[in-house]
């Protein structure tokens, strides 16, 4: 009989908390904004955007120095959203902190907009590296972290990966090398929503025991609730080892919208009906 490791038991417990944790007003407002934008554009990766939005929010609010980000100062922390399809969550956060430059979120995915369905550094200064094709963010982040280490910089390189994206072999190539180079300035966050476009991980490609895997690759690892602002904020203070870090952020795909939660149908939603929009807004406003 298959037995659960302690880490897996802990992970299940954290997932359960991720599911039940209530959202604060800020988190709800950001979700309402994301839905408004998706409604206007007629399509978006809503599920992934809402599973990463709290992580990205805390990164920009509490972890990275926004003044340095605004100035593109070389001392800034670097953030790469490797799962680029979650970019609506990123755009909402960038808008909140005035980091969209001249771009308007209302123009999301329009022909002349700088805000596409995957983030581009060419069209938006606050995007560190263009992503979309999966498995690219971590190798690039390792290169950046190596360069910053050579420069004796204190800046962090934070890269957010999807759990489905973890199937790309390039991630594991990069993980091996990050460990070899002892890149303590590298922070990998796995958005572990346990679901990809075709269904749950167990059916498509099981990843557990995910924490042990990253540990085996030489990373310091911790599992947190990816919708708990306090846990996200604290983890950057408590992980102080000389190894590269990997945070397993247990999240809920579509978190905050009951009809979208844990639904692969809402991974990429092309047609959102008026009834659905009305139900979503009602649920976010009433909780």
């Amino acid at each position, binding site marked *: 009989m298959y037995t659960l490791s302690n880490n897996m038991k802990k992970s299940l417990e954290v997932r359960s908390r991720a599911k039940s944790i209530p959202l604060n007003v800020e988190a709800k407002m950001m979700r309402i904004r994301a839905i408004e934008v998706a409604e206007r554009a007629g399509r978006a990766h809503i599920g992934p955007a809402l599973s990463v939005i709290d992580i990205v929010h805390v990164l920009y609010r509490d972890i990275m120095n926004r003044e340095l980000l605004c100035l593109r100062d070389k001392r800034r922390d670097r953030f790469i959203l490797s799962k680029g399809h979650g970019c609506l969550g990123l755009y909402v956060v960038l808008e909140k902190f005035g980091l969209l430059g001249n771009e308007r979120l209302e123009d999301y995915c329009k022909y002349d907009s700088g805000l596409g369905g995957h983030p581009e*550094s*060419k069209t938006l200064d606050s995007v*560190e*590296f*263009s992503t*979309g*094709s999966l*498995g*690219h963010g*971590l*190798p*690039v*982040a*390792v*290169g*950046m*972290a*190596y*360069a*910053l280490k*050579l*420069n004796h910089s204190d800046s962090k390189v934070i890269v957010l990966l999807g759990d489905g994206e973890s199937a790309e*072999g*390039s991630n594991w*190539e*990069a993980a*091996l*090398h990050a460990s070899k180079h002892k890149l303590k300035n590298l922070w990998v966050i796995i958005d572990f929503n346990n679901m990809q476009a075709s269904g749950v991980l167990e059916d498509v490609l099981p990843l557990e025991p995910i924490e042990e895997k990253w540990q085996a690759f030489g990373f310091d690892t911790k599992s947190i609730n990816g919708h708990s602002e306090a846990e996200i904020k604290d983890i950057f203070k408590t992980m102080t080892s000389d190894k590269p870090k990997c945070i397993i952020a247990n999240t809920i795909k579509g978190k905050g919208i009951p009809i979208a939660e844990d639904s692969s149908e809402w991974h990429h939603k092309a047609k959102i009906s008026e009834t659905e929009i009305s139900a979503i807004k009602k649920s976010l406003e009433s909780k």
Partner: protein
Amino acid sequence: MRKAALDRVYELARQDKRVIFVGSDLGHGTLKSMREELPGQFVMEGIAEQYLVGFAAGLAKEGYIPFVNTIANFFTRRAFEQIAMDAALHALPIRFLATGGGMVYAPLGPTHTAIDDLALMWCVPGMKVYCPSDANEMIEVIDISVKALEGPSYIRFGKGDEPELNFSNPSSMVKKIGNPRAKILFLTTGILIHEVIKLVDQLPAKGGDCIGAIHFLQIDNIEFRTFREEFSSASIVYVIEEHIPYGGLFSRILHVIQKTGEPIWKLRHRSLAHNYPHNYGSQRDHLKSCGLDYESLLSEIGEEVV
């Protein structure tokens, strides 16, 4: 040619801290002195080409100039998406040093012969594609690539024992030998220029006057004005390349000429076959089997010269 390139990278790295060499399990002796003298600027990674290109992109994004070296195919085929999306989409100054261009690794079989690399690299927007013919040109290209930083470059290495050549215009990307008004013109890139030179050496003086040749050191930006005089004077123009028939030099020349109204019927094309070779032997064996060695070319043009 490879040694000349790596030595030059080492020399540049001593002068410029931005220059970093990145290899993929290239062997114990590779740049041993650089490894000891400049450990931060020498990175020997595992066999992981997709990672390698992404890693180089991260370095370049932070202001470094990475020279990445592995076998040509392992860049162009395995890491194609990283080359396109990480390097070219971001216009980063990554220099891909591609060991074993063409049929250099013929004895190792089809997994190791780079017969389609020029096509793959040429189609990447912003990619500069160089095919040096000797060590001097290799150094020239390495130097250029540090001065002109915009975008990635693909540099195809020859076997390494090529004699040094004396072109009439050594500082140009379009190098010329022989009679500029020759009846028979050869257009080529990389090491095949040596075959044309051997061919001329086999002809009597008068016959040699019938031959002109142009070697394109950089093939991604060929312009007709750079060889208009030679092309217009020639009766027959051979395009010879150590590459499959499509997507390489001939495709580029056709693309350039079709816009000029010049007669395309003058062109003759000799290349590798459009298949993965299942013979081994040497590079020369394969050039001969495809009619690209000087003896085959001599026999083909014999009647024209007479």
